[in-house]
């Protein structure tokens, strides 16, 4: 079928994105570019750890006690094949970092995803339906906010372990992810509730009601796309926070199971060696944690400013 020139397909979503203000703001912000590159670096090295890491720190067959407690390669007794040194069992720190970051990031991302789904869902419901349901959900939010995040996570974690003492490793992960998710969902619920209440009054929602669209569909198809903006910014910064909460829990020994050490576990393990002079076993995991959190936070900051139409 011949299409006249005026009916050419308009630029698709990707083309519009690259011509838009957000991308322009990104390419002109050194902070955004650097932090995005760092995040990308950490993410790639974490995701592809099994293929990228120089050694496999969990393969007992390759470990050699003769290589234990080696300092980083640039120090006098270091070896080039162990760039950042080894721990007391001969595991390469760099490889352990990559695997650890992998666990940390995966747990954090899963937790934030669960958090977003729960928070946005409850926020939408609360804002759209209003009345007693809204009051109830907001009181639940208030209660949750009165507990410190770590305490909530510890509580759920402890309950989970008590209920399933001999549980399989994956259950431990699930409990951990749930614990972190439950510390963070409230902010999404509140933000989304606020914007939902605003959007609900707008005339395009009323027009949909006059057409006869049922409420659930209005919520999902009309309101939801318009309230997700702030959620993206919050979620980005939330990833950093989730990484730190997970690290804290693992540091305390109630996070990931010991067979899958995350950055927090590594920091804890390395802590014991700090004062005997083998600083690298704890410092490098700590630095990696800080790097991830910092670059994700900076990226989130940039995103918030880029998406704010008034600052442009």
């Amino acid at each position, binding site marked *: 079928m011949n299409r006249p020139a005026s009916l050419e397909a*308009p630029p698709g979503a990707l083309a519009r994105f690259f011509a838009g203000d957000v991308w322009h703001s990104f390419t002109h912000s050194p902070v955004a570019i650097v932090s995005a590159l760092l995040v990308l670096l950490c993410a790639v090295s974490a995701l592809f750890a099994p293929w990228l890491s120089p050694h496999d720190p969990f393969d007992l067959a390759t470990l050699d006690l003769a290589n234990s407690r080696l300092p980083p390669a640039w120090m006098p007794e270091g070896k080039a094949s162990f760039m950042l040194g080894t721990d007391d069992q001969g595991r390469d720190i760099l490889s352990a970092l990559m695997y650890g970051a992998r666990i940390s990031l995966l747990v954090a991302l899963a937790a934030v995803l669960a958090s977003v789904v729960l928070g946005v869902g409850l926020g939408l419901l609360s804002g759209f339906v209003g009345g007693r349901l809204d009051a109830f959900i907001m009181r639940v939010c208030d209660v949750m906010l009165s507990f410190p995040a770590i305490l909530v996570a510890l509580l759920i974690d402890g309950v989970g372990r008590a209920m399933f003492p001999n549980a399989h490793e994956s259950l431990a992960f699930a409990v951990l992810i749930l614990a972190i998710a439950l510390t963070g969902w409230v902010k999404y619920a509140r933000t989304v509730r606020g914007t939902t209440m605003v959007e609900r009054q707008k005339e395009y929602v009323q027009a949909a009601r*006059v057409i006869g669209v049922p409420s659930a569909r209005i919520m999902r198809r009309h309101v939801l796309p318009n309230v997700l903006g702030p959620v993206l910014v919050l979620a980005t910064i939330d990833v950093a926070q989730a990484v730190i909460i997970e690290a804290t829990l693992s540091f305390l020994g109630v996070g990931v199971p010991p067979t899958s050490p995350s950055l927090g576990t590594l920091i804890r393990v390395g802590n014991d060696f700090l004062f005997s002079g083998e600083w690298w076993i704890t410092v490098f995991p700590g630095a990696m944690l800080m790097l991830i959190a910092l670059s994700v936070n900076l990226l989130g900051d940039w995103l918030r400013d880029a998406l704010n139409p008034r600052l442009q």
Partner: protein
Amino acid sequence: MTALVQVQDLAKVFDVSAPWLNRVLERQPRLFVHAVDGVSFSIERGRTLALVGESGCGKSTVARLLVGLHGPSAGSVRFDGQDTAEVLKGSQVQALALRRRMQMIFQDPYASLNPRWRVRDIVAEPLREHGLLQDVQAIDERVADLLRSVGMAAADAQKFPHQFSGGQRQRISIARALATQPEFLVCDEPTSALDVSVQAQVLNIMKDLQRERGLTYLFISHNLAVVRHVADDVGVMYLGRLVELAPKQRIFAQPRHPYTRMLLDAIPDIQMSGRARTPVQGEVPNPLSPPTGCSFHPRCPVANARCSAERPVLIVRDGAQVACHAVEEGRI
């Protein structure tokens, strides 16, 4: 032949009390606003009734009551003989069938279209919701037809609302409202947010469509000049009540109610005819504590003791309906 739309003693009360906890702690009474306080009128098929009044008079609430966005606190709205409130609460199938026959156009062209949807989806939504067309191609063709009927191009269907001006968005809203081929359109200040020359385009389109399709309009506006252009009958509202209801010619030539006269006097005189005008007094009172009796009496130049005690009812005088003691008593 019964009128298409019949409204009888329609009333709507809004509860604007403080939240329960605040009320208990601060010992505040419950607060109610009688946004619509006993309004009755009817609209014949193919005609346009305009409701005019200033802010807070309840005309927008009447509009929303008519399309079922609010349920009435008292009174009834009958569409083609059926009580709309009951039908909309009843079976889904019947409710949808009723909704297909009446639609609404809103005031704010920037908020009445979902900014994340393409125009094609916005205009096609009623078609999809009512299952009128399934085939994607058929839907696209119908959308193109609708856009052309409001003076826009078929290619506009691919674009997003922010790519259009206020007047064009309002036309998209009209196209959406016409998708189900309704008989009755409620228009809530459809041109108030538009520039004068754009307003002219939209009003011309609306009149053309009415003539071609035999549409019935309820037209809400605060602009009497626009009302004069589009309406067949005009109802004047003040603080939730109808104070005068008459055919257009009669209301503009011989306004009877003191408030109608005041409104007409207050319109700026573009033609600079230098006509004599009585200065306007006072402001619309707080709807939370309306005056007793006739709600206009504090500002009325001819109010007497009865006006502050007794609420006037609509009486017929020379082909117009007026709610005024002074008119009834022959004082004006």
